[in-house]
Structure formats: structure tokens, C-alpha cells
């Protein structure tokens, strides 16, 4: 009756090396990692990379088709599209990171408390989460953003709340399964208190699937942000956001498709990269696939 393996994937040093190996053995995952790193670099160094000031209007050069001076052309107000996409990286990544941080920290805390204490605590928290889940993320974020007023900060809060149920549910499930392990009981039998057990024994063992969820959700969050800014909520003009650029450009779709397509492609690339990395992480962290990959 000896169990040779745990249900969780422990993250020790040798494990870490194995996971990295599996992760980097797939081209598409490496591609995703490279794109994501490149995006962060772009976001940080945007002012140095962008060829023009993304906010500067040049009414002599409106709706220029792609050319040597303006690689992706200019928009109706004469702003350089490439520069605006580069600056839009900042918006997207910032919203993505902050919203995911809000959703993950609040959601995981709620899930941890619900799963750990069980009973009525579990019932109350999880019913609240279920209620949140009943609304589509975009709709929920839209309502919250409208209630809080526009602005990037409120979009991040709105998306954070909208995406929190996924983390709460996953964390709660993880905690419930970790609680079944003997080390949980053994920790209690050694006289450890609730906080100690939570943070030494429960939380670290819950992490592997949450890492995957966080990565996957980055893509989804960026997509949701683009959707909101397409709908005109979020960044205020003249700030650059990909979703808003798609919206601005689509009036000229027939004559200047690049205005919508370029930011649209950027959105796609980012979401695709995050999803691929998430997929790769999921496979690398899945103990059932150990040895196969």
C-alpha cells in the first residue's frame, strides 16, 4: 500500500530544473516566453523604442499609409500607429498584472479561508463567489467600471473583482484536497496553530495549479481590458490602449485596415503567448505527465 507519488507537484530544486526542461523543450512555449519578455522590455523602455511621440498630433500627416517614416502609418489625428502600439503595451501589461494581482490575492485569500475553515464560512464565501460567477466577466467589469467611474485604475479594480471567482474556487478546491493529507493532521497533532498550518503546510502545496491559472488569466485579462477599452471604458484619451485603437481605426477599416489590424494583432499575439506558456506550465507541472514529456 505504499504510495510512490504525491498528488501535488512539490517544487524543489530538482523539480524546478525538470519543469524548466519540459517547458523549454517545446518551441511554441519558448516563443511565448520570448514574446512575453519582449513585451515587458518594450513596456519598460517604450519612450526610447518608440520612433515618435505617441501623443503628438500632426494634422499634416493624417491617415498616412505605412511607409518608411511611419512603418504602420498614422491615424486620423496624425499620430504614429507604431508608437501608439508600443505605448499601448504599457497599458495592457499594467492592467493585466495589476488586475491579476488583485484577483489572485483577494481570490486566493477567500478560497483559502473558505477551504480551510469549511462549514458556514465555506458556505458564505463560496455562495458569494458563485453569485459573482453568474455574470460574464466583461459585463461584471463593465458594471463595476461604470459604478466606480472611468479611468485605468477603476478598470483594474473592476477586472480584479470580475476575475476573482476563478482563483477563489481553484484555491478552495486545492485546500480541500491538501487537507486530506496526513501531514495536515500531523501538523495539527504537533500543536501548530491555524495560521502556521495555513502558511507552512497548506498554501505552498496549493500552488502549482494556481501558477498555471495566473499565467493563463494574464492573457484573458489583457483581452478583457482590450474589450473594455474598445467599448470606451478605461484609459482616457489621448492615452494609448490597444482596444481603443482598434475602435478608433475601424471607421477607416476599408481604406486603412492597418489602423485596426495592427493593435488587434498585438492583442492576439499577447493572449496567444500567455496561453501557450500557461499550457506549457500546466503540462510541466502535471505529475501524471511526468516521464512522458
Amino acid at each position: 500500500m505504499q504510495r510512490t507519488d504525491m498528488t501535488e507537484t512539490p517544487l524543489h530544486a530538482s523539480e524546478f530544473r525538470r519543469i524548466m526542461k519540459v517547458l523549454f523543450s517545446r518551441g511554441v512555449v519558448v516563443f511565448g516566453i520570448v514574446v512575453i519578455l519582449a513585451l515587458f522590455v518594450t513596456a519598460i523602455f517604450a519612450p526610447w523604442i518608440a520612433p515618435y511621440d505617441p501623443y503628438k498630433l500632426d494634422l499634416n500627416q493624417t491617415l498616412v499609409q505605412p511607409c518608411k517614416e511611419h512603418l504602420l502609418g498614422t491615424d486620423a489625428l496624425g499620430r504614429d500607429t507604431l508608437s501608439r502600439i508600443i505605448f499601448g503595451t504599457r497599458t495592457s501589461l499594467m492592467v493585466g498584472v495589476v488586475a491579476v494581482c488583485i484577483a489572485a490575492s483577494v481570490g486566493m485569500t477567500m478560497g483559502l479561508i473558505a477551504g480551510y475553515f469549511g462549514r458556514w464560512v465555506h458556505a458564505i464565501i463560496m455562495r458569494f463567489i458563485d453569485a459573482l460567477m453568474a455574470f460574464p466577466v466583461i459585463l461584471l467589469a463593465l458594471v463595476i467600471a461604470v459604478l466606480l467611474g472611468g479611468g485605468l485604475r477603476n478598470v483594474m479594480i473592476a477586472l480584479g473583482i470580475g476575475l476573482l471567482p476563478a482563483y477563489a474556487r481553484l484555491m478552495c478546491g486545492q485546500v480541500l484536497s491538501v487537507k486530506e493529507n496526513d501531514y495536515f493532521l500531523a501538523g495539527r497533532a504537533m500543536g501548530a496553530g491555524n495560521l502556521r498550518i495555513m502558511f507552512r503546510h497548506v498554501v505552498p502545496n496549493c500552488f502549482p495549479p494556481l501558477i498555471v491559472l495566473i499565467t493563463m488569466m494574464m492573457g484573458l485579462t489583457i483581452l478583457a481590458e482590450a474589450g473594455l477599452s474598445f467599448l470606451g471604458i478605461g484609459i482616457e484619451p489621448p492615452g494609448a490602449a490597444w482596444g481603443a485603437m482598434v475602435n478608433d481605426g475601424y471607421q477607416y477599416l476599408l481604406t486603412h485596415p492597418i489602423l485596426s489590424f495592427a493593435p488587434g494583432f498585438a492583442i492576439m499575439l499577447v493572449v496567444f503567448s500567455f496561453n501557450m506558456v500557461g499550457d506549457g506550465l500546466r503540462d510541466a507541472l502535471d505529475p501524471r505527465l511526468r516521464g512522458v514529456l
Partner: protein
Amino acid sequence: MPVLLEVKNLKTYFKVYHGLVKAVDDISYHIKKKEIVGLVGESGCGKSVSQLSVLQLIPTPPGEIVAGQIIFEGQDLLQFEANGDEMRSIRGGGIAMVFQEPMTSLNPVLTIGRQLTEGLELHLGMDVNEARNRAIELLSMVGIPDADKRIDDYPHQFSGGMRQRVMIAMALSCNPKIIIADEPTTALDVTTQAQLLELMTDLVSRFNASLVIVTHNLGVIARYAQRLYVMYAGRIVESGTAKEIFGNPRHPYTIALLNCVPRLDEEEGRKLVPIEGMPPNLLNMPITCAFKPRCPYHIERCGQDPWPDLKLIEGQHYVRCYVET
């Protein structure tokens, strides 16, 4: 020797969807200082639940300690809040436990050292360095070679037997008065079993602690335990010194248990006799003797009257049975 732990009329029930499971139904026992006591019975007879009840580690709900007293060093443990400070200081500090599954009893993401020092920091207030040195000492005491290096290893780098040694070191770390070993060797192979029991009994006597061995294996008990409690369906059906029980088993269940293990001192060719039937479903238990359906000796009275009380045979030997076997 003075009595260290006395459990009186303990009842632990589980309220489940289909009804009430009386996992532990009115058991009383005691453990003296420096004594090794065995608790024997089949799976699901309430052995583990009774031991978890002592430390109030029963999952509540559905479990609940309905009645009884657990007197440890003059205090009734049941008056303490299950997660209160008093109970927490007793867990590990006064009474420690070793669990059945060494493979899952250690947290896979923490090093052995960090898990061993947990109790030392918690109960003995040691600082990091003191605790680490003590942990290394404990590890070598339980026979882990190169303890000072292995202390930084993770549980998956240890074999099952070694992990159980770590669990023993962990249980001993805070000098508890009683160690409860819940099927400590069930998951291990036979050679390791013997070594571990030897180690455990040896260390327990060096630490002046008492040991409770919970097991379904009479062979394990025979050699080490001074006194035995035999449990069936949530009740103690026979108790006494090891000599009394192995020399003169009186309850039909004990007799049946002894008949189904091989012995070295018996005539060749004896067939092992399995116990017919299944352990009873603890839901909807009859008030009559729960062993009656499987009992070859049962008489008419067994099916009519409720379970008899424990009856003194001689010395410390008690039996719960109408039949004079």
C-alpha cells in the same frame, strides 16, 4: 506506576447523511507512566478515532465527542477548546502522534529540518540554531546516517522507513509524556517493521514516555506491549496484560484474531482460520453483541440482551461476553 492518561466513557459519534455512526462507543482505558499499551482491532473498529479523540483531532463536523472524560495529568482535556492554546500545547508537547502513512505524513514542500524544528520552536521555545542542532541530534538518534546533511533534504529523498523514522523523531522532539503510534508500521515491509518497533520502544523508554501502539496486527503487539485492549465495533471487548490475553484469551473475537495469525510454537499443519463474515456496519448497530453474527460460540442470550459490561476474570483481565469460553 501512576496513571498518566485515563479515558472514561468516551463516545465519539459521526453524524452522517444516513444516520449516526457510533465510531467509539463508551470506551474506558488508562495508560500508566512508561507503559507500552496495545490497542488491537480490525479496520473501522474505532481504534484510530479513539486516539484522535484524545487530541481532539476529530474532523468536526461530522464527528463529535459526545460524552466522556479524558484525564491527562489531572486535567480533563475535553474541557479545553479543540483549537485553543491549552490543547495546542498538549499536542506534540504532552501527547504526540505517529501516523500510519509515512509517505504522506510529511509535507512534500518543506525540508525535513524545517518540519522537525516546528515543534521545538513551538513548544520548547528554541531559537533557530538550537532547534536545528536538536533536530540533527534527534535524526541521528532515530538512525538516520549523516543526519547533519540529510536534515536539508526533502521528504521525497527519503524512503518510507526513513520517513517513519523522521516521524518518530518528530513525535519525540518535544519530550512528550505519551506517544500514540497509529498503525506505525502498517505501510512498511516486514523487516523494516521490526526495526522500527524496536527503535520506537527503545527510544520511548529512554525518553521515559509511554507508548500506545494502535494496530490490527497481534504479532506486532505480542512482543512489545505490556497491556492490551481489544476493540470491536467501537467498544473494548477484552483487556488485560499481554500475558493474560495471549495465554488465556476469553472473548470469542480475541480467540478468532489469534487463530488467524500463524505462530511459531504451534504444531505443524494447523490451518489458519479466518474470521467469517464482515465487520458490522457501524450505522444502525444492534444493542446486542455486535460480534454475535460472526461468533461460533454464541448462545441464545447473545441475541436478546444488550452487550454485557466488562467482567473481571482475574488480575487485570476483563471480558465483555456472556459465554464462558
